[in-house]
């Protein structure tokens, strides 16, 4: 039996090693490019940088038109995460604890917004936010991203909340807790990991989205992803800087993953396992 388990272990390790290699190779290539000069990128083909240089990163971190892109992205992503979680918490509680008129239809209707192609919404969003004077602000992008993040947050939180026995609510009410006090003092700590996972997902989908954030911004709230596309076309393909900018967009994601690594698996199942 042990021998069988061991042989399976070795085969699995090989499969995983190959898969992780496949995942990491393109990222590695971006990393090496970000450490090369343009002459080296275009001139010699080498698997690793011959003369590693940090010039590309220096260009980005000293030029406000570059690094403000990161700041803008982070501002609207954090705003979106806070808004999404705040409104999703009570709604998820309602869905997980009560039946009410039209609850099932409402729940599916919310999910349909997650299914809406951003391409469909790009133009109407542009007109809507322009007409109310929010064009090119962080809050506009944050609100636009609520379109797909709020339904997702409700969905995930509802899954986690359904795992908490209802007796806890009832005991708290018997003990004289009011609803807001019970919710904040007792219930939220119980589903802390669920809130973390939902926040992770909101962060993730808001961070990676480009179509809407690019449509809704021009200068003041321009996300880093959009800065990349424009600078590339204008300055005649500065590959090194492009690669460095790409590497820097990976870092926030990597940090967030590290913090939630123990909840990732459960979170990806939307709390439903």
């Amino acid at each position, binding site marked *: 039996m042990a021998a069988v388990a061991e042989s399976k272990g070795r085969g699995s390790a090989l499969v995983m090693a190959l898969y992780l290699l496949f995942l990491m190779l393109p990222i590695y290539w971006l990393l090496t490019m970000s450490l090369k000069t343009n002459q080296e990128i275009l001139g010699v083909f080498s698997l690793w940088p011959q003369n590693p240089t940090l010039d590309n990163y220096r260009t980005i971190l000293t030029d406000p038109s570059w690094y403000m892109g990161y700041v803008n992205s982070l501002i609207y992503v954090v705003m979106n995460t806070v808004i999404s979680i705040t409104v999703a918490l*009570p709604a998820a509680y309602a869905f997980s604890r009560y039946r009410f008129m039209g609850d099932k239809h409402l729940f599916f209707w919310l999910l349909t917004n997650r299914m809406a192609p951003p391409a469909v919404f790009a133009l109407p969003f542009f007109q809507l936010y322009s007409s109310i004077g929010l064009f090119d602000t962080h809050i506009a992008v944050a609100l636009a991203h*609520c379109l797909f993040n709020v339904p997702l947050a409700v969905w995930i939180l509802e899954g986690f909340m359904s795992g908490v026995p209802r007796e806890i609510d009832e005991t708290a009410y018997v003990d004289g807790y009011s609803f807001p006090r019970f919710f904040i003092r007792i219930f939220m700590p119980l589903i802390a990991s669920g809130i973390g996972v939902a926040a992770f997902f909101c962060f993730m989908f808001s961070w990676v989205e480009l179509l809407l954030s690019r449509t809704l911004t021009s200068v003041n709230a321009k996300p880093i992803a959009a800065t*990349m*596309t424009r600078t590339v076309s204008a300055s005649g393909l500065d590959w090194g800087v492009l690669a460095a900018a790409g590497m820097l967009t990976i870092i926030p994601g990597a940090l*967030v993953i590290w913090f939630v690594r123990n909840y990732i698996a459960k979170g990806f199942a939307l709390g439903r396992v």
Partner: protein
Amino acid sequence: MDKPVNNRAWLLVLPVLILVAFSAVLPLMTVVNYSVQDTFGGNQFFWAGLEWFEETLSSDRVRAALGRQIMFSAIILAIEIPLGIFIALNMPKRGFWASFCLVLMALPLLIPWNVVGTIWQVFGRVDIGLLGHTLKAMGIDYNYVNDAVDAWITIVVMDVWHWTSLVALLCYAGLQSIPDAYYQAARIDQASRWKVFRYIELPKMQGVLLIAVLLRFMDSFMIYTEPFVVTGGGPGNATTFLSIDLVKMAVGQFDLGPAAAFSLIYFLVILLVSFVFYTAMTKEGETL
């Protein structure tokens, strides 16, 4: 699970309702409005009825894009779902290596989509990309800029690279929930590896697999940024999927009427398929 009926729960849902009404219903109404009107410029609109819908439905260009889109989603699901299950089965169950794999696998999911496009655009280039250069050195004629088949392969491989981890992580979560006792029982019965998979692991993964299929279908059907960055919809129209076509029409040519009609049809198709998945999913949840 019998939940108490309480219509005051609506109050708790109200904030979400207002927010989503603002960010979804309002814009959608604009789209509906455009889809039934025509304009000669300025702000002069007049009623066009269902003209745009008829035009969209009979347009060869849209039909071709829809065909490509369906083919793309089908290929993506056919590759990513089995591969994701396979990877999940091979992941370490616990300990340092499990965390290690989780973190590395989740990494592609958190890269902004146009950076994913950029990574593969560079990676596949014949002159400076590792993949393109290696293939060329091996004597394979590969060029995603000019060759439609190569462009397709590049985009499919890119999507597999980008999203297979999501399927794998979902299945992994499903597998984690299987108690050891099930495996012990199977061992006592001397069940084969295949039987363990077929009668223990697969049924337990059913729920998460449906989520995986649903998410992958929706997202692959709306794919825009990645192929746009890599190929720009080319060569020719070979990789022009629905979203790319739509954005070209709405923002590029500013054909609001046809674009709006197109949007609504597009949305309805996704909605319909997702509804089928969702119904299957909740049905399955009730029988458990």
